């Protein structure tokens, strides 16, 4: 939970740095930063430049599959983005991850609230149970959902008994199964930051509200919810961003009709070896996500955080 809390802090680092003690060298901070920042610069920032330059390459005339030369063919972007084969999965990624984020918030917020305020001495154990799924391979858990949601699995069986689904079942494979998997895989990322900010809410504030005749729900709406906003922002971002780029859930729990942009990106690399198209798609995905995140943080930041 320290992690979630810290991620929230990194998003908006409001702490003022400590006064610099005179005994320290001026260059010490740069020496401390150098190795790590160099690593991030070379293996995170520079690759983004390579990604962009790759996205402008064209195939070598008469060359082998996977052979490209550096050009400045911005037509790659136009060609890719006007193709239904690519822009539909792009839209679908944001719709699926948007729905998964809302669902994870609806499940994760009450869960975090319960752990923060109503769990008593069970609190630490419950927190461990929230992160426990991480300790089983992500792929095996997703594959487990495929079996659980299959026609002969537990869920369809139960739904069939109460008559909600017919004999055909049909939950796996479908959009519903993909969204179930996405919500599941990123739920802890939603729950932990919300818990971290709820834990910091001073219970005396809520008591004060009650003393001033606030109904429980009003107290929640006016006191607890606004104070938990940093956690909600961190949690929704930590769910939405990885979910939008994920392709494992769509591949394991959906059909070709549920492909997301990640599926296309990895297909271009592994099956077609069309690196420029792969780079175009990655770059567009990143641009879309950064735009959405900026708009979101600004909106939420100005309306609710005050």
């Amino acid at each position, binding site marked *: 939970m320290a992690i979630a809390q810290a991620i929230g802090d*990194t998003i908006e680092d409001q702490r003022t740095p400590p006064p610099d003690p005179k005994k320290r060298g001026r260059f010490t901070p740069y020496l401390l930063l150098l190795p790590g920042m160099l*690593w991030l610069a070379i293996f995170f920032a520079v690759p983004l430049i390579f990604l962009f330059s790759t996205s402008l390459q064209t195939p070598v005339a008469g060359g082998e599959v996977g052979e490209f030369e550096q050009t400045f063919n911005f037509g790659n972007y136009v060609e890719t983005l006007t193709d239904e084969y690519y822009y539909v999965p792009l839209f679908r990624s944001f719709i699926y991850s948007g729905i998964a984020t809302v669902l994870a918030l609806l499940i994760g917020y009450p869960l975090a609230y319960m752990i923060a305020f109503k769990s008593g001495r069970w609190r630490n154990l419950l927190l461990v149970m929230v992160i426990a799924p991480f300790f089983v*391979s992500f792929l095996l858990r997703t594959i487990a959902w495929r079996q659980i949601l299959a026609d002969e699995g537990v869920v369809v069986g139960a739904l069939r008994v109460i008559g909600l689904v017919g004999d055909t079942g049909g939950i796996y494979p479908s959009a519903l199964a993909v969204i179930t998997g996405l919500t599941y895989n990123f739920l802890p990322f939603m729950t932990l930051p919300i818990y971290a900010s709820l834990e910091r809410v001073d219970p005396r504030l809520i008591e004060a509200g009650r003393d001033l005749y606030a109904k429980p729900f009003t107290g929640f709406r006016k006191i607890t919810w606004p104070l938990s906003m940093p956690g909600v922002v961190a949690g929704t971002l930590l769910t939405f961003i990885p979910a939008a780029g994920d392709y494992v859930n769509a591949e394991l729990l959906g059909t070709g009709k549920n492909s997301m*942009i990640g599926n296309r990106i990895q297909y271009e690399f592994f099956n077609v070896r069309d690196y420029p198209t792969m780079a175009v798609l990655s770059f567009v995905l990143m641009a879309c996500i950064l735009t959405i995140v900026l708009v979101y943080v600004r909106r939420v930041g100005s309306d609710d955080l005050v």
Partner: protein
Amino acid sequence: MSAPTTPVPVASKPPTGVRIRNWIGNNLLRIYAVLAFIYLLLPVMYTFVFSFNDSGKSNLTWVGFTWNNWTNPCGAPDVCESVINSISVGLVVTLVATMLGTLIAFALVRHRFRGRTTTNLLIFLPMATPEVVLGSSLLTLFLNILVPLGFWTVVIAHIMFCISFVVVTVKARLSSLDANIEQAAMDLYASEWQAFRRITLPLVAPGIAAAALLAFSLSFDDFIITNFNSGQFTTFPKFIYVADKRGIPAQAYVIASAMFFIALAIVLIGQFASRRRKEG
């Protein structure tokens, strides 16, 4: 929370329907949480149960109970090789990422310097970038400068995305400590290095340990970035992904379950130890 135990003279016992409704109303949040935990833990239980499946080649349907998978976890081809690969990658990654990230955390919390905002941004961005983009962009670097893919490219990729998580974890611990303690040590004629080694390091150690565990588990479980940058090299998640096409052996479920219990034990022992320290 519960109904009043002393009998109220005027109003008689409310009808059962109302009482059930009241009970549900009072415990709604708990019921909701129980359902959420079932959702969270169902696939974990499923994995554990199927590690005992006497399945043969593919572990998709329940055949019968057996201990054999647990007594012979390396029985299926390539499972243990991939686990050993994942552990070797994880150890190198944990060592390097923890060192680099801890140094950055110290610079951010304990020093004032120009370029703070840029530093924070460069640490936050990898966490805000989807894994496909991290994986594919690093791949374009390796492809363009013709680096052969394998063990070392996977290690490089994992260190890259683990650093940020180490920084935020250590930073959280470090900024909860009082910087004046170090100052006090130095006022008592400790050199900067002595103050660091005798005072700061022991206090930050739990944060660094947590960061190392996090780095190892992130590295061990990563699939998407690994898949782009590994070439023929196989890690445990990649083994599962490839095996899924023809049937995952039950031994993979055994190893996943074993990892689950080992990690759970480490976390619980850590919590127990920190509580003992606080009380003692």
